[in-house]
């Protein structure tokens, strides 16, 4: 069984780079290109091993990073004039990253305003309870999810190999199982979905199921300060009778 979830529906290589820069807490103006390239390539490998369909742009960026890295390592007996003209090989990439980050921060600022239908209301407004746009991720990146997955994978008992086709569970099975669980308990932490003896194969299948549900906007994913990532399945509208009789998990603005 070959199950592929398309990753690029969520985010692209720039998002991954910014994620790595933030995670490593390095200066965006002075990126340690060797470290970042290494981690970037590790990520690509992990994503591929998860059977996620990786967009061409990710591979193009990998090539770009390797190219920049090799230019930084050029022998020092280059003509001084040539070095002057070349400048920092990272410059172009840094500029692109800074520009993108600028708008990402702008998006956060915009989202923090008093939004109509969320913070303030007008006469006759009918909110729809939808996440508009790609996937069900509102305030965290798919790479945060993948990080969380890595942590779970590290603690899991080692398999001989990560062979998905040998897995007893299919992604469809897991999707159904997850939906059952979430219907009952409504809101779960990411980690609680895996137990100590879950095999790596099953972990990965569970993760793919989560991604698929996020893509279909069947579940919402939030970042919570205390327990990390939380997963929540919104109720069907028909289930609503009276808001005072239902308890709701805390909503993020």
């Amino acid at each position, binding site marked *: 069984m070959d199950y592929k979830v398309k990753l690029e529906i969520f985010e692209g290589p720039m998002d991954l780079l910014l994620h790595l820069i933030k995670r490593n807490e390095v200066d965006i103006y002075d990126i340690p290109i060797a470290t970042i390239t290494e981690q970037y390539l590790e990520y690509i490998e992990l994503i591929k091993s998860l059977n996620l369909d990786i967009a061409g742009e990710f591979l193009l960026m990998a090539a770009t990073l390797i190219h920049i890295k090799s230019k930084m390592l050029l022998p020092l007996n280059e003509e001084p004039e040539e070095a002057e003209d070349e400048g920092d090989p990272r410059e172009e990439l840094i500029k692109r990253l800074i520009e993108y980050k*600028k708008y990402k921060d702008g998006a956060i600022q915009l989202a923090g*305003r008093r939004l109509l239908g969320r*913070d*303030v209301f007008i006469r006759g407004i009918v909110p729809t*309870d939808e996440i508009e746009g790609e996937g069900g991720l*509102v305030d965290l990146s798919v790479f945060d999810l993948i990080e969380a997955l890595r942590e779970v994978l590290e603690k899991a008992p080692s398999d001989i190999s990560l062979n998905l086709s040998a897995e007893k569970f299919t992604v469809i099975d897991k999707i159904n199982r997850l939906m059952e669980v979430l219907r009952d308990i409504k809101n779960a932490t990411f980690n609680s979905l895996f137990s100590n003896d879950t095999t790596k194969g099953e972990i990965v299948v569970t993760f793919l199921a989560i991604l698929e549900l996020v893509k279909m906007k069947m579940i919402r994913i939030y970042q919570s300060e205390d327990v990390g990532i939380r997963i929540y399945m919104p109720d069907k509208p028909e289930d609503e009778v009276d808001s005072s009789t239902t308890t709701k998990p805390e909503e993020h603005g």
Partner: protein
Amino acid sequence: MSFEMDREALKPLIEALIFAADRPISIEKLMNILEGEGREDVRASIAELMKEYNETNRGIVISEVAGGYQMRTRPEFVQWLRRLFNFRFSRLSKAAMEALAIVAYKQPLTRVELEDIRGVDCGGVLRTLLEKSLIKVIGRKDLPGRPSVYGTTREFLEAFDLKNLSYLPDLRDIEESESDAVREATEDYRQSRNNLEEEGGGADPAGQGNGEQGCGDPTGSKDRS
């Protein structure tokens, strides 16, 4: 009727119009409806009305948004209002929000220009933003293929509580410092390459930058937000 009303008579009338309008109503539109009333009188009545609403103990304020005036609930009551709607509100995914920010700040721009910045395909988010009327096609670029050029809508201004586009929050002054910092980093890089040649050593180029955008301390003692 074209006789002039005094302010006290104008106020409740304007109040009724603002209430009944299905979108923010501009001074021009009000003047149109109130034929004969001078702009200054209308403006002053609105100002007094807004003062009464916004400064007294009411649940509704009159906001100036999207080039007009609109009654909106007081932000302090958000949690009760959300209960009214069973905690339902539509929100934008991260990807859609980021694409929208780029369109808002860089408009007018084409899909290709947007994708150059985001580094990923934007067909889906553009469709979403168009469907939600947050962006629209404002023209076509004079290039092969005549690509559509996008910009934000009045609905966008309404949704994000903006009077007009000049009220978009400043992008953290990166615009000014960005080119300086990149130039500085490049200078330092060249300088340290020269130093290395002289010393014959193998240390990494220093590269200063002003660190504003970086998460700072490479030794990792800072908190990650």
